[in-house]
């Protein structure tokens, strides 16, 4: 196993952990945390794997394109977190709930 593959696997583990927590936990703040962990995992896959060996000997080893994409992704994630938290706080002040109601299944 090489270093990039190693970090790719760690990223996948984070994704799976986040997904599990997203499903299991009822508290909305915890769900937001889970999504954040999951997105960190995706970013780790994106950047970690990019450090695999260069195509040609002379080419630079660091691929800037995944880095730029992950920067974009981090900003999108913070925007999502901000929006989600505002909605959750509003829900809390309207209903006193910090979890989703029972209208889920059918």
């Amino acid at each position, binding site marked *: 196993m090489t270093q990039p593959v*190693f970090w790719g696997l760690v990223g996948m583990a984070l994704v799976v952990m986040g997904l599990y927590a997203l499903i299991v936990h009822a508290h909305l703040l915890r769900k937001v*945390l889970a999504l954040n962990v999951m997105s960190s995992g995706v970013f780790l896959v994106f*950047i970690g794997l990019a450090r*695999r060996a260069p195509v040609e000997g002379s080419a630079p080893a660091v691929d800037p394109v995944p880095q730029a994409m992950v920067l974009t992704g981090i900003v999108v994630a913070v925007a999502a977190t901000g929006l989600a938290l505002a909605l*959750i*706080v509003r829900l809390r002040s309207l209903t006193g709930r910090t979890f989703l109601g029972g209208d889920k299944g059918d």
Partner: protein
Amino acid sequence: MAALSLLDWALDGLLALLLLWLAWRTLSTPALFQAVVLFIGFGLVLALVWARLYALDVALAEMAIGAGVTGALLLAALVRLEPPIGRGRHPARDDEQDDNG
């Protein structure tokens, strides 16, 4: 790529273990305040990982946005989710009411 030295592997392994442990604790610790603090720690360790992967831009952004601003947003939300009657300098101790499964 040249084989990594043992030291490199040890460092990588340590960081990865720390990262996974922080993530797990973030998602499973019963108190929400602790979870948020752990998440901020997770972000900081992740920034170290980015630095190790030669992604310094991402490391900076992770520290400032991923750990910093996101952490601040989460803490602020935690305070606002406090019950208004609760008196608290420590929003923290509010055990998560939904996680007693």
